[in-house]
């Protein structure tokens, strides 16, 4: 006998659903002897035409359609049109957590969606109750979809998840038949979806088939289990047998784990707090999370990975990242300093800290994080493009991800926009990018060293510029007096306990850099170190690639007598280096190339020196702006083959930047992982008048004042004379 053919189309956003959907498809076909096909499309970014045509073909055959989390204008409007145009309407269109226009397209039996979430008067208690439930769910979905809402009740997420926990038992009281049946069905489907465990997603599909596909056998045979529940907020660890709802339990387990596995206890100063997407954990699609967690632990850092309270992460942070306030009688609460249990927070959600996917309240985020004084890192999982497209792309992240998952978290002060995992082509769940996870973990360990090490041991590599490269331009930076500024910094660092040799004045500092031994090398600045080619080859793994573009090392720029020259001078534990130029000088052929492939040897050697020979703990770029962050590579979401990633290496990068240049500053932030520290622009004044301009103005005013024609004629002659002299 031919198996019954059924089609379900799912349009969704994110990476947590695909794997449970595939599993559900298999499980259902096996259990009910069906030929069910689940066609799923990630609507996270606008679909290309070929994919779209396929989606439309699937839609035309669909018995049931799910639309989940779709907020994108373009996909949504195309889908709306297609849904309207279907000759053969599906038995049910189930829309969850989408933009309002799509929500209104929900079609389930006699369900009128406007009525469901509206305020139509209920006629009896049962209806009132079910409408009440629906209204609460609807209000929450509305909040998710609204982008401009500024005020939001805090705690709404937890309350809402509590409601969801209770919903199944409440729903039992609602009659399944009659006009309330469809409302009940919608809410049931919603419950399954919200805890997207593989079992729940299977149930969600079965539920829709049972109630909306005309098939007597299925109606009878399909048996549904109640929705599984998962704690709404919890700590997750890949090694733990279960999730922890209390921090104390997690701490205990972590310590116990120490004795067995030689791990570390949870010391706040070396613990990283991670914010994870709840659906990924619930649906089991978390291999990329696990890998990053293990990479951090391999670097000697401890972790507290928690389920993000998506709409407002302050809830999760408050619960797990902050010590509970001790009961201190007689003292005011605010007098107690709140102590963080973590020293860095890494958001793996790719969304704003307060506000979730559709909006952002960056003021609230900044206020909260300032008070806690723990830095926020926001890293990216490739959710709307595959790992392969990212790898092959010269651009890196697509516009949707660059906007949502990088530009918006930046408003919260987030740094380190690393891509750590994503969906491989044809894959059903995200996988880690091993090398990126490890690189990120090492960078976070370096940041951690800055937090913990004795200041006298910290070694700083500050970088200044010389553009265009000639002696007169040493210390180039927009609106900044670099030598005075650097001197002020050295004095202050010295006062704070860093090991610094402070020159007597800014002029002395400049002289040390500008003159020194520069003449004997024919260089623009003092040479702090000569690197042999042998050493360069040993320390730098990228030489071969550079040679393809620039020939054999050491090349002609920043080199002398077969050695690579590092320009700069040491001031105790602070090195002030002069960044090499792009290398266009006297090389018209290179200038003419549409694309450049690599920095020159001297440039690479400079950053190699800072990380591997000077052994800097951090980079400090001084002023707007250098060339390093403009070196070839992806624009955002760098890979290990991007030059700024290679040049920055593992070093934290602090970048003093003109407050008036957020655009180029953002390039530094994204491509060289810089934390920007803005500096003020110089005083501004009216230009005023000088030389003959003042005289001219007086004459002009005299002319305007008098009505006497002779006087005017006379004045006019003088006016033209002066104006002529001024070329006006």
């Amino acid at each position, binding site marked *: 006998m031919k198996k019954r053919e059924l089609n379900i189309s799912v349009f969704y956003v994110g990476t947590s659903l695909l794997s449970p959907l595939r599993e559900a498809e298999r499980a259902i076909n096996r259990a009910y002897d069906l030929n069910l096909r689940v066609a799923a499309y990630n609507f996270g970014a606008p679909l290309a035409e070929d994919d779209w045509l396929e989606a439309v073909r699937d839609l035309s055959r669909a018995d049931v359609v799910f639309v989940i989390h779709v907020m994108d204008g373009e996909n949504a409007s195309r889908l709306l049109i297609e849904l309207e145009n279907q000759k053969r309407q599906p038995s049910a269109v189930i829309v969850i957590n989408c933009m309002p226009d799509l929500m209104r397209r929900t079609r389930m039996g006699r369900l009128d969606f406007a009525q469901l979430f509206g305020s139509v008067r209920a006629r009896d208690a049962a209806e009132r109750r079910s409408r009440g439930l629906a209204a609460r769910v609807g209000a929450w979905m509305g909040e998710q979809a609204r982008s401009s809402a500024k005020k939001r009740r805090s705690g709404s997420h937890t309350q809402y998840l509590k409601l969801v926990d209770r919903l199944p038992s409440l729903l039992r009281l609602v009659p399944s038949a009659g006009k309330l049946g469809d409302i009940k069905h919608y809410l049931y489907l919603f419950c399954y979806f919200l805890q997207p465990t593989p079992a729940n997603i299977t149930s969600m599909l079965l539920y829709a088939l049972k109630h909306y596909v005309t098939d007597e056998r299925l109606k009878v045979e399909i048996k549904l289990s109640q929705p599984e529940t998962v704690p709404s907020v919890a700590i997750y660890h890949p090694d733990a047998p279960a999730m922890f709802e209390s921090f104390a339990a997690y701490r205990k387990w972590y310590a116990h784990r120490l004795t067995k596995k030689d791990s570390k206890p949870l010391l706040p100063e070396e613990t990283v707090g991670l914010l994870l997407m709840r659906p990924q954990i619930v649906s089991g699609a978390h291999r990329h999370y696990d890998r990053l967690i293990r990479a951090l632990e391999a670097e000697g850092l401890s972790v507290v990975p928690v389920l993000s309270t998506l709409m407002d992460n302050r809830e999760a942070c408050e619960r797990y990242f902050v010590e509970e306030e001790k009961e201190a009688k007689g003292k005011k609460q605010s007098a107690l300093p709140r102590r963080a249990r973590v020293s860095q927070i890494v958001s793996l959600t790719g969304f704003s800290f307060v506000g979730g996917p559709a909006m952002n309240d960056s003021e609230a985020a900044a206020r909260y994080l300032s008070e806690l004084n723990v830095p926020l890192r926001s890293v990216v999982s490739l959710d709307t493009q595959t790992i392969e497209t990212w790898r092959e792309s010269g651009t890196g992240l697509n516009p949707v991800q660059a906007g949502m998952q990088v530009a918006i978290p930046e408003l919260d002060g987030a740094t380190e926009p690393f891509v750590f995992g994503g969906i491989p082509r044809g894959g059903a769940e995200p996988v880690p990018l091993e090398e990126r996870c490890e690189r990120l973990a090492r960078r976070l360990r370096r940041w951690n060293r800055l937090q913990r090490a004795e200041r006298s041991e910290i070694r700083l590599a500050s970088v200044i510029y010389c553009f265009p490269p000639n002696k007169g331009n040493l210390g180039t930076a927009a609106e900044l007096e670099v030598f005075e500024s650097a001197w002020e910094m050295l004095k202050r660092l010295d006062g704070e306990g860093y090991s610094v040799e402070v020159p007597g004045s800014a002029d002395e500092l400049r002289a040390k850099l500008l003159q020194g031994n520069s003449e004997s090398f024919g260089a623009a600045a003092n040479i702090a170190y000569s690197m042999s080619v042998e050493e360069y080859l040993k320390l730098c793994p990228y030489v071969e690639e550079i040679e393809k573009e620039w020939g054999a090392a050491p090349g002609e720029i920043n080199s002398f007598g077969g050695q690579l020259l590092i320009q700069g001078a040491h001031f105790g534990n602070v090195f002030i280096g002069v960044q090499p130029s792009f290398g266009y000088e006297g090389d018209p052929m290179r200038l003419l190339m549409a694309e450049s492939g690599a920095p020159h040897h001297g440039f690479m050697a400079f950053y190699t020196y800072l990380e591997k020979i000077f052994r800097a703990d951090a980079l400090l770029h001084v002023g707007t702006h250098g060339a390093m962050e403009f070196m070839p590579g992806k624009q955002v979401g760098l890979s290990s083959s991007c030059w700024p990633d290679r040049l920055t290496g593992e070093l934290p990068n602090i970048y003093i930047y003109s407050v*008036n240049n*957020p*655009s180029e500053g*953002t390039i530094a932030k994204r491509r060289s992982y810089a934390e920007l520290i803005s500096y003020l622009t110089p005083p501004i*004044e009216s*230009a005023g008048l000088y030389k003959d301009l003042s005289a001219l103005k007086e004459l002009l005013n005299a002319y*305007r004042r008098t009505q006497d024609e002779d006087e005017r004629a006379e004045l006019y002659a003088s006016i033209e004379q002066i104006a002529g002299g001024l070329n006006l």
Partner: protein
Amino acid sequence: MTGKDRDARVLALYEQVLEIEERLIPTGLHVFGRVDEERARVDMLRMVASFDRPEKGVRALTDLVAEGLGFKDYSALLRARAGDEDALREREEVDALVRRAVELFVQEGTEAAARLLETNARVSAEDTRSTFHLLERVCAELKKNQEMESLLRALRGQYIEPGPGADIVQNPLILPTGRNIHAVNPYMVPSEVATTRAEATAENLLERHLREHGRYPRAMALVLWGLDNIKTEGEGVAQALWLLGVRPLRDSLNRATEIEVIPLEELKRPRIDVVMTVSGIFRDLFGATIVLLDKAVRRVAALDEPVEMNFVRRHVLEQMSADGSFDEAAVRVFSNAPGNYGTNVNFMVMDSQWETAEALGDLFVTRKCFAYGRDSKGRAFEGREARLCMDRALSRVEATYQNIDSFEIGITDVDHYFEYLGGVSKAVEKRAQARPAIYVGDNLSRSSCVRSLEETVQLETRTKTLNPKWYEGMLKHGFRGVAEIESHVTNTFGWSATADAVDDWIYAEVAKTFVLDEAMLERLCQLNPHSARSLVGRLLEAEGRGFWKAEKEMLERLREIFSDLEDQLEGVA
């Protein structure tokens, strides 16, 4: 010359002098972490107080005073140029009163200043409170500086608060500095305010072009940067849309992802074809916006409208009939190859590596001919090399345009304006076989204003390079100050190289001010002989390349000085 003509000339000169006098300029350089007690505040505060900031309930003092005195609104006074003596007098009265009020505010505080305006302009203290409150906040923030503290905190791996980036006048919320500045959410661009302001600027531009050339430009090349579009929330983007005759539409999430076509009856002018050359930075920061711009061009090109009212369609049809598809013909957004930035025109100019002027325009196209957008099947093309498309698009261009948005970053302050606006203009010159009209949009002032490039070069030179207030401010910083002066001269030279936009007198005045004045030359050489030599060398290069017809004596003197400087520096070595 009739009396009336003479009066008009006098007023025009007066306006020009006023424009120079009032323009804000940076006076010196900042030292990291340092509070500048000497900071002259009145001019800057006056400017801060001259903008409406509805989001903070702040009204411009100029507007309040103009109202109080019973004049036309202040923007109208600003617009009424061209010989309206009454409007000019009223404007001066408003400006003088506002200046006195701000001076009083600095000396005695809000109350005295508010009282002055109450007495002399019948503006209630109630109305000016929030404005003075804003000024108080700006002053308080400028009396401290947390940059060094932030640096130390960053070095301890602590959280650095985010903050917007702009200058103080544009956005006083940039204070305090020492914060982690950020860009904007690209989906918010262009904002409503930006759209409103852009319409005014674009109309202004078209009017001027119509007046001077007798018809609308059929195609324009716009330079779009991240710098101004972040700070103005996309005025440049909105200008492009307005020229095309479309408006941005927001989706249900309030994101600008769609466009709406303005009917021709409403637009009352043809749709202008726009070629957008966007910086690598704009490309990176505004990916979603590029999709929007590309969509707008395609939509307009496909409209069923008479070609004399829709220049985009006209050009696309022309090209399709010759050869090629709609997709090829409708490409209008160009930037660098992925992962690359800049035109290199600046490097070529500064390093004197070009022979014919054409080379600069060709280099611009080589670097910028990578197309971004989506084809008619919705497939993204991320930086497809499209040299032929760009050549063709530029060959139709009659005007080029770019915005400047900040007092500190003007067209002679950095090399990037001449590499972009100059570069694209030079590229057009060869491909269209005519030099385009080159415009600069000035969004610094209250009323947006469009100037020709030549006017802008003159204004910048007069208010900065040749202005003792500016160069003495720079020379306070010694070595770096001389480098700044030299860099302004080189950037001015860049406008000769790319756009022939620098008059002889400018070079002559630069020579007189910095080289032929012996005391000045001595100072420059003391402070930074390398930059002093570069400056003289640049003047000689300008003459040598025919950008400057120097008087013979002057030229000889410069040559002598240059060889003396060479000798001295060689001697040092």
